[in-house]
């Protein structure tokens, strides 16, 4: 696993040999997409709960430690709470016993249920994707996009080349911050000044990025990147039986979650 690509002290160790971590990147992404799309269609506790439970249960198979996962995904837990609270307050469902009733603010047992379902749903949509993304190496992803999804090679590898600059840009971001700090900018309590300093830092980052990109493009063209003729690939991205099995498993699990929700009577498509 390429650890250069992580950023902002979220360097985490992943066992790249774990059964699910070894799968084809496109298979992983597709497997994470299936339940996510289904959860976009429904807001109910059972579907979201089953997907979330399965995702949590699968964590060891991805080769990700629990502490590492928490370090990466803790903002998600914050978001789940705020989404749940927001939906409980602003939902149109206000039946059941009133729990809070202050002026315009009315929270009832049923609206809390709605909020809970909305929060679980956000977690269920996000977590499988987080697991997939944490275990994907960008080089494998580009290979797999070009080979399995037939993304035009110039775009797949062009974006990969740019992605290789990301650690440089992250470092540059830090340097720009320190340089400004040394000149007495930044670290202000005054929000207006802080925004202006931040804006300047962003602009400097973008100028550097475009300049680097232009130079990189010339270098790539000089090596025949824009060649008209047939392109060959240095690495083979394979999509094997285990990859198909991962995809089928995800589809089966999603179907099972829906069947359970319908059986439990909580199935609640958003466009009904």
């Amino acid at each position, binding site marked *: 696993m390429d650890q250069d*690509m*992580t*950023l*902002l002290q*979220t360097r985490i160790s992943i066992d790249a040999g774990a059964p699910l971590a070894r799968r084809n990147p496109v298979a992983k992404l597709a497997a*994470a*997409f299936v339940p996510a799309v289904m959860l976009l269609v429904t807001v109910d506790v059972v579907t979201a709960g089953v997907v979330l439970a399965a995702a949590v249960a699968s964590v060891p198979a991805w080769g990700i430690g629990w502490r590492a996962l928490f370090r*990466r*995904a*803790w*903002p*998600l837990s*914050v*978001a789940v709470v705020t*989404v749940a609270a*927001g*939906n409980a*307050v*602003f*939902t*149109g*469902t206000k039946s059941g016993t009133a729990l809070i009733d202050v002026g315009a603010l009315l929270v009832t047992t049923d609206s809390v249920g*709605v909020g809970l*379902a*909305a929060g679980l749903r*956000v977690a269920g*949509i*996000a*977590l499988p*994707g*987080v*697991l997939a*993304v944490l275990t994907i190496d960008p080089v494998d992803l580009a290979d797999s996009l070009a080979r399995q999804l037939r993304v*035009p090679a*110039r*775009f797949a590898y*062009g*974006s990969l*080349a*740019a992605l290789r600059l*990301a650690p440089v*840009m*992250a470092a540059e971001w830090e340097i720009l911050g320190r340089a400004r700090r040394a000149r007495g900018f930044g670290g202000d309590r005054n929000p207006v000044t802080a925004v202006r300093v931040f804006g300047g830092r962003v*602009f400097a*980052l973008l*100028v550097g*990025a*475009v*300049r*680097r*990109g*232009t130079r*990189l*493009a*010339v270098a790539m*063209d000089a090596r025949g*990147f*824009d060649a*008209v003729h047939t392109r060959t690939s240095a690495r083979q991205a394979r999509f094997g039986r285990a990859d198909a099995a991962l995809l089928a498993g995800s589809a089966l699990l999603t179907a099972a979650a829906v069947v359970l929700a319908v059986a439990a009577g909580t199935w609640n498509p*958003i466009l009904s």
Partner: protein
Amino acid sequence: MRSPQDPTHPSNAPTSRIRRWRWRTVDIVVASVLAVAFGVLFAVWNNLIYPAISGPLTGSPAAPLIGGVWLLPAVVGGLVIRRPGAALYTEVVAATVSMLFGSAWGLSVFLSGVWQGLGAEVVFALLAYRRWGVVAAVFAGAGAGLAMGVYEGFVLNAPYAWDWKIVYTLCAITTGVVIAGVLGSVLVRALARTGVLAPFASGRAQAEV
């Protein structure tokens, strides 16, 4: 993206109609690099700044008011590259990069990127890929904001009552216009002034404006 078969095709003549559709290497790489820079920025914004300033707004229908930052790549990418698909491409790559760099949101970031990028792309397409000024930027920002508001307000915050959904979407459009549209076009003009956009029509147009 098939290359023309003539041996004289390479990169520096984006004038004819075919050339306008074909991306040169520098288009692909600079769009990608801009997207990566925004992706890095998103990583900072998502992990350090947004949680700190969104406190009073989070979970309320006014939450999208500061979300315009996420729409910047679509507008900036479109204005700089000036190719069909540039807004969508830049936004999607930026979303993907921020996803690879530890967004807690997983694939929903990618989906948001697709919708937001499409929102801006549709506007540029409606302007026949011929208008790249402030007005076009504002409309593209509004398009991206509308897409963000509809996607988040109707899909992610599905239980909201209808009137709150409309407030939510209007807030999203506002942030799209102000942050992505106005700020985005100011940013592109400033970039052009530094000279780094020399390989692009957006850099050359600056002298005339």
